[in-house]
């Protein structure tokens, strides 16, 4: 088995709103340089768990997170933790690409340039390397100053990825990053994910079993039991998808 340490470790992670618990007691370890997939039916709380990993949950009033998440063995909820610095280290990609109304290059540097002061030449290098890493460089290198909104949706999603990469994250959280994309763009993103894991750790929420099989290393299934979302099983991709003894998994897999 893999001896590498867990970069992210949740223990008894629960998230609730005043009226009910959304997801309860999730304990998983996420190994470095792997693609860790979160699957399960809609509404079970996959995205909620994902958002707790970089404390995006702080931004929703009334949302209460209990339990713990450790990054490199240190709790991200410890007093004195800078949640903003954490989010730069644990980046995020959303379902719909969200570009800011600015040029392509300004979008790439949007976060990085504010996190630290960078000289002009460093900025240019950083923009290029981030766009290279997101496999967008060749498509946009001649029009870096063009408005980002002019790009296709698939390109926009890769731009968002480049923007997250520019802040040098260790972990990238992806919340169904291809659900708004056409098959070709989806393929491009999936190829990217496989490449990125050599230098990053990726946590991927997906609806798509084909995608989970294609890019995932480890998988966790979050399903609804007793009206609350919880972790029902985890392990390698095939081991999870073959757990026919867990009724929820069986139903989810056969109905896809």
């Amino acid at each position, binding site marked *: 088995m893999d001896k590498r340490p867990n970069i992210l470790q949740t223990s008894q992670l629960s998230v609730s709103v005043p009226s009910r618990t959304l997801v309860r007691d999730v304990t998983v370890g996420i190994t470095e340089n792997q693609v860790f997939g979160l699957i399960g039916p809609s509404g079970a709380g996959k995205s909620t768990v994902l958002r707790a990993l*970089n404390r995006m949950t702080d931004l929703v*009033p009334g949302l209460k997170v209990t339990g713990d998440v450790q990054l490199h063995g240190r709790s991200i909820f410890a007093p004195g933790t800078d949640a903003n610095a954490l989010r730069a280290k644990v980046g995020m990609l959303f379902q719909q690409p969200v570009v800011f109304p600015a040029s392509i290059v300004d979008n790439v540097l949007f976060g990085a340039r504010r996190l630290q002061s960078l000289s002009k030449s460093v900025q240019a290098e950083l923009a290029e390397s981030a766009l290279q890493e997101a496999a967008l460089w060749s498509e946009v290198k001649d029009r870096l100053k063009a408005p980002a909104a002019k790009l296709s949706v698939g390109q926009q999603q890769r731009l968002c990825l480049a923007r997250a990469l520019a802040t040098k994250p260790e972990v990238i959280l992806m919340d169904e990053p291809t659900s708004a994309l056409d098959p070709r763009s989806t393929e491009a993103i999936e190829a990217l994910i496989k490449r990125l894991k050599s230098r990053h750790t990726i946590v991927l929420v997906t609806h798509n079993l084909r995608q989970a099989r294609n890019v995932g290393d480890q998988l966790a299934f979050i399903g609804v039991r007793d009206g609350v979302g919880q972790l029902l099983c985890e392990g390698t991709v095939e081991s999870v998808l073959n757990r026919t003894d867990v009724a929820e998994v069986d139903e989810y897999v056969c109905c896809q």
Partner: protein
Amino acid sequence: MTKTLSWLFSLLAVATMGLLLGIFIWQSVPVWKHEGWSYLWEKKWYFRQHEFGVMSMVYGTLIVSIIALVLAVPVGWGAAVFTSEYLPRRVRMAVKILIELLAGVPGVIYGLLGILLLRDWVYDTFEAFEPLSGDTLLTAGILLAVMILPTVVTLSDDALRAIPSAQRLAARGLGLTRAETIFSVIIPQAARGLGASVLLALGRAMGETTAVFLVVGRQDNNLPDSWFSLRAWLDSGQTITSKLVSSETNIAYGDSIHWGAMVGLGLILLVMTGAATLVGTFFTRKPHA
């Protein structure tokens, strides 16, 4: 039947507004004939001598409105950022309701408070500059600032809230602080709406009548040598509205030139507020829509 009635009543409304505009143009013709362009450019208002120039009143209207904007816009934008970016939705609604109540307080009540509280405060605070009384352009400007503050807050809050929350989440997901998100993502995108809030507030400020009348001092022909003189703010003055609502309106009717001069003031006011309102309304629209 329903259609006929709709057309009939709508045409009645359009005709009335057309009549209003027509009357203000037509009834002011005598003064334009009598004074020519000097009606606009000169500072003289001696109705017994039939000398009419509106400059000191245009000056008064602009100065009190500018004072009001300078005071109310920063506070209004700040408050809007707070309600829109920091408050949860329900609390935000409650605060907005309170602020809209503030917007509904009648001008005459603001005027009353101005007489009671503000007049003496201005007189005492600026004693060093020896104002003749507490009824000054500055007093009217401060009072107007309070009156237009709710307009600025409400419109700016709407403009900020119109930015999709996905933009906020994306910026926070990159590790930006709330303040960085506000300044680099939200405000640039809401700029048009924020600008509109200023123009619409300007329109309100220029047209506000009762409160200004009660504290501005209503001194005719007070135009400083320099438009940029700050000391002049501590003199009594006259605005277009404070002149229109004074008893001179009753005296003037029947003397076509004097009446023309009064109606002409109304026309100038209509042009000034109309321009601010229309440009402001245009600004609230999306650039491409």
